[in-house]
């Protein structure tokens, strides 16, 4: 084992499903941080996680986790990681404690019951440990999955969309736990759709589009590098590509047009005037600081509006990934 290696390293990591390149030459280095992989649906997030957790074999390239190759030493990798997939998979007919003891036994922990109780306490589930999981809320079930994942004290935790489908309070609580795990020295690799959560919790984020990493840095650096001030305009009429100096069009969501400008204050009025002259009727106009959403939308090619949902391709991908 090479000691100066980062906890997770990938080099030219690629996964192809026939002619579909799901992950394309990914090179990453992640070490004792919360790393967020952000990307639209089908961009290769889950495929990346599955390769790093030894569930899928890469087509080419290499990845190491804790110094062990995911292809040459998969069982050593599995010894040091935990993986919580997107689907919430906990046994409803077992109690919370039974669910965690089951995992402790699978990991071969010497004192399964005591270790399970510690993990349940850590996840604030001790008071409900003897209740059937079917009575748990979504947030509690996700925390139970975290307790299962923590029972063997992994060095790396892979979380695929950990807060999907949870209410705001549940999401906040999950992130509090993830942050405290990172503060305890754990490396957390997380995929998410929620930019505000990634902005708040992740040390660094990678934005992935069509299998390629298109941006990789801290949320603050990405915001300052990729976006200046944002001018958001709502109005009627078709946007005809009007441009004014120092202003760049970065995207459209619904009836909102978004532009970035070095100074929103200086460029706002000329932009409004130009849009009016092009025939648009403006209803509202806001200048704000960029969010990770803006960075994401400026980097990701617009998909939903231009591409129809390819159900056959979607099913093929799911089948191959499962």
């Amino acid at each position, binding site marked *: 084992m090479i000691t100066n290696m980062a906890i997770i390293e990938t080099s030219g990591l690629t996964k192809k499903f026939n002619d579909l390149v799901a992950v394309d030459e990914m090179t990453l280095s992640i070490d004792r941080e919360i790393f967020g992989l952000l990307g639209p649906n089908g961009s290769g997030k889950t495929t990346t996680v599955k390769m790093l*957790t030894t569930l899928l074999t890469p087509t080419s390239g290499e990845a190491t986790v804790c110094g062990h190759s995911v292809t040459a030493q998969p069982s050593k990798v599995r010894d040091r*990681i935990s993986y919580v997939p997107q689907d919430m998979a906990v046994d409803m007919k077992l109690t919370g404690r039974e669910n965690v003891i089951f995992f402790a*036994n699978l*990991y071969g922990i010497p004192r399964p019951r005591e270790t399970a109780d510690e993990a349940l306490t850590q996840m604030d589930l001790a008071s409900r440990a003897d209740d059937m999981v079917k009575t748990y809320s979504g947030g509690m079930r996700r925390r139970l999955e975290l307790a299962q994942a923590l029972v063997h004290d992994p060095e790396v935790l892979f979380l695929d969309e950990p807060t999907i489908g949870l209410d705001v309070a549940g999401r906040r609580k999950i992130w509090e736990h993830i942050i405290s795990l990172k503060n305890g020295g754990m490396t957390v690799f997380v995929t998410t759709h929620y930019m505000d959560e990634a902005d708040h919790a992740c040390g660094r984020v990678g934005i992935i589009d069509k299998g390629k990493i298109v941006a990789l840095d801290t949320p603050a650096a990405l915001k300052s590098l990729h976006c200046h001030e944002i001018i958001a305009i709502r109005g009627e009429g078709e946007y005809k590509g009007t441009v004014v100096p120092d202003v760049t069009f970065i995207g459209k969501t619904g009836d909102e047009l978004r532009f970035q400008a070095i100074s929103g204050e200086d460029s706002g009025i000329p932009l409004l005037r130009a849009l009016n002259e092009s025939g648009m009727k403006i209803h509202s106009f806001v200048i704000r600081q960029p969010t990770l959403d803006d960075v994401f939308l400026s980097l990701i090619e617009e998909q939903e509006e231009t591409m129809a949902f390819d159900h056959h391709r979607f099913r093929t991908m799911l089948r191959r990934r*499962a």
Partner: protein
Amino acid sequence: MKRTFTYMERDLRRWIRGRINVITSLVMPAAWLIFVGLALPIRFTDNYLDFITPGILVLTMLGASLQGGALLMFDKILGFLQKFLAMPAPRETILFGKILFITCRGLIQTTIILVIALILGAHLLNPVFLLQTYLILFIFGVLLSSIMTTVALSLEDHDSYAAFNSMIAMPLFFTSSALMPYDQMPGWLEVLARLNPVSYAIDAIRSMQEGIFPATTIVGLLIGAVVVLSACIITFRRATV
């Protein structure tokens, strides 16, 4: 091996807590035993209940195995399998745990059916006979649950599995030697019955009723179980990499 039992224990707890499933799976074989075993006017034997009981025991194991094949498929569909595969325990223990659970669940169900048969008046209380019967049912359970798990792993969804299941369940039973001896069958049925693996298990239990130890049949079933289990391991490895 310990992990195999851990996986089995999980399924056992879940099954026992789903009380309805425990009872419903016993209704069909119990109904056969009562309504056919006691009511059918049969001339080729004095005690039809004694004749049909081995068939019903094997039918119970058959039902348990057919029902159990989908368990691994559900673990896959519901996301459990991904978690298990990312754990350091040898991956094959997931499969062995499942097959062991399906077989043991079948043995529990056959025990209940056996008790009902005894209450109804069957003469099956010889301990050596019972031990050998369990041995045959265990090997048969491993054979059939391996077949059904392989089928489930090869099919894409539960609907296809359910369709396959209902397609083979009754034909397998009716073309076996469960309900009548070979010399009472029409010629075409006898050919099918002699090819049917369900008949092997039933015939082996009947031989033991007559005091003959069916070594050849048991070895045949054992070889079949090993071959199918090997095929199942290969299918499982292909489906999970």
